[in-house]
């Protein structure tokens, strides 16, 4: 399923929205203006954008601790997102969730998650609903290479394949779980090798190439919607920032050379070159997109900063329905 020109522009827009939001969020975090732990998505934009271009708000996703990118690609509004990161009453979670629990049920985004590996079983539940109600909705679960070692991933993958649920398992393999390289957390190179053990196809794709992601996801989602069951899609990618924040704890667990190698394959730069070549989006047009988004990001930050903190009287609200 090749993306048409509009789709290409749409994917580009989603990637840039993530990049600008995350870069600015990173600055705010480093400046101590956002509290708590921020896990930023910069470098991995092609994955969220390429996949979410196939989904509507009726489809569900589960995310990870690194969840802003997924929510933005799914349609998240900057103002309410920043408000949540700042812990304001106007945030998507009324300030109760923060970065690690950012979510929006109306957009079908079932939450970032502070627990590595907790998402896949929840996505299986959403896919179960899609099938139970005889809809053609799908549920996509994002998780990291590190998360693929949690038992929860295993149980969820097995159940999804067993019930032929309309689910897509997206492993964002960025080569590290925190500060531990993949070679030090699993004896395999391709997480997709795990798919056969559940009876589902395993597909590997260049996670820096949004078109490749889009096409592979399209095929898998078609299969899922047709009732043929889930797919494990492994996207080889890289995070450009540290595990937490931008510079993180300053540990030397990966080399500058490695980072630079990957940065040469920046998913947005590569994509923009391609779009320019194809005549779909000129460099000037791309710059305009960036500028427009930056303005929206700045407005979002302002909205957040001017929003009230939650009323302490709401402390015990929403524990129960």
């Amino acid at each position, binding site marked *: 399923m090749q993306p048409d020109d509009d789709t290409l522009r749409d994917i580009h827009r989603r990637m840039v929205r993530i990049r600008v939001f995350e870069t600015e969020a990173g600055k705010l975090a480093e400046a101590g203006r956002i509290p708590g732990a921020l896990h930023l998505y910069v470098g991995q934009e092609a994955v969220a954008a390429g996949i979410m271009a196939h989904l509507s708000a009726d489809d*569900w996703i*589960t995310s990870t601790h690194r969840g802003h990118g997924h929510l933005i690609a799914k349609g998240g509004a900057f103002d309410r997102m920043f408000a949540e990161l700042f812990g304001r009453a106007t*945030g*998507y*979670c*009324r*300030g*109760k*969730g923060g970065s690690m*629990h950012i*979510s*929006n*049920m*109306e957009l079908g985004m*079932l*939450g970032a*998650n*502070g*627990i590595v590996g*907790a998402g*896949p*079983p*929840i*996505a*299986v*539940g*959403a*896919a*179960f*609903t*899609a099938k*139970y*109600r005889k809809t053609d909705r799908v*549920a996509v679960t994002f998780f990291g290479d590190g998360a693929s070692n949690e*038992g*929860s991933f295993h*149980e*969820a993958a*097995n*159940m999804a394949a*067993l*019930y032929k649920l309309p689910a897509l398992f997206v492993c964002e393999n960025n080569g590290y779980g925190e500060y531990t390289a993949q070679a030090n957390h699993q004896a395999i190179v391709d997480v997709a090798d795990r798919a056969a053990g559940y009876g589902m196809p395993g597909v590997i794709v260049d996670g820096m190439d949004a078109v490749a992601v889009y096409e592979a996801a399209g095929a898998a989602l078609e299969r899922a919607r047709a009732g043929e069951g889930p797919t494990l899609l492994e996207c080889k990618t890289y995070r450009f920032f540290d595990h937490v924040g931008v510079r993180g704890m300053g540990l030397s667990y990966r080399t500058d050379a490695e980072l630079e190698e990957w940065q040469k394959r920046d998913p947005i730069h590569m994509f923009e070159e391609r779009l320019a070549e194809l005549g779909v989006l000129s460099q000037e047009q791309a710059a305009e997109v960036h500028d427009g988004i930056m303005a929206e990001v700045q407005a979002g930050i302002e909205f957040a900063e001017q929003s009230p903190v939650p009323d302490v009287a709401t402390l015990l*609200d*929403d*524990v*129960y*329905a």
Partner: protein
Amino acid sequence: MAEAVATRELTYVGAIAEAAHTVLAEQDTAFVAGEDVAGAGGVFGSYRGLLDAYGEERVIDTPISEEGIVGLAVGAAATGLRPIIDIMFMDFMGECMDEIANQMAKMRYMFGGSASLPITIVTMSGGGMNMAAQHSQSLEAWICHLPGLKVVAPATPHDAKGLIIAASRDDNPVFVVLNKLSLRNTGEVPEDSYEVPIGKARTVREGSDLTIVTYSRMVHEATTAAEALAEEGIDSEVIDLRSLQPMDTEAMVASVQKTHRAIVVHEAVRFGGLGGEIASQIQELAFDYLDAPVARIGAPFSPVPFAANLEQAWLPNAPKIVAAAKELLGSE
């Protein structure tokens, strides 16, 4: 006054099964999932006949994947269904505590109230069946400490059916902690659908000298103890909490204000058990009425032993309650 209802004798397990049938009949979006709940009808018989009645789309055998099962419930509930999931033995909660504690219990709050999780979790607790350390525990203390969950623990067939139905209609995750040694107990159960309200205790026996606060199977031990005490002229009130979270603090406090003495009884290990919460609430709220410390009876501090004589020695029971009552009343 309650209106007259048609009732008949049913076993505890029969009442559970009837509740499951009732819930699936009443709610299109309700389904039952768990290990061996469909083809086998549940290893305790809790879901007998359910597969035949409602089909494999709504009565679902799962792999042995407790974390997956709870996750399935969380995801299905968040997207509009009303799952009833079975965790065969409460002891297996260790395999799915993350999805219970960090996802199911917290999702609504973390999401600022935008998600609802109408989930019923059915599980079996308790010893006395020579099942040893990993199939006999009463671990309700773990889940009662988790904001976002409700927990009920029916002692009778009537309450089992009524609380399962109430749980299924509640828009929150509700644990129904059943007791495996009670499965063959019988009692009057209405034929129709009904709710036992979550959060309301039941006074099993009125009395004036002493209040025994308890729940689940220990209600029967407490009643037996109360009868034995009555023969010695000690008149005990027995309160069956039924609901552990929320807890009917008012009912226990009112009773103790009347009797001036309380014993809390549960089968769970005493140290760190829910009895500490109950006893603390009583002494906090009825301190001036107490003529003696609030006593607690629970199992001693060891895993559940296998050998029948050891297990019987381990379990709280009527004689232990009688002894504690007499000590409390200084009558021995």
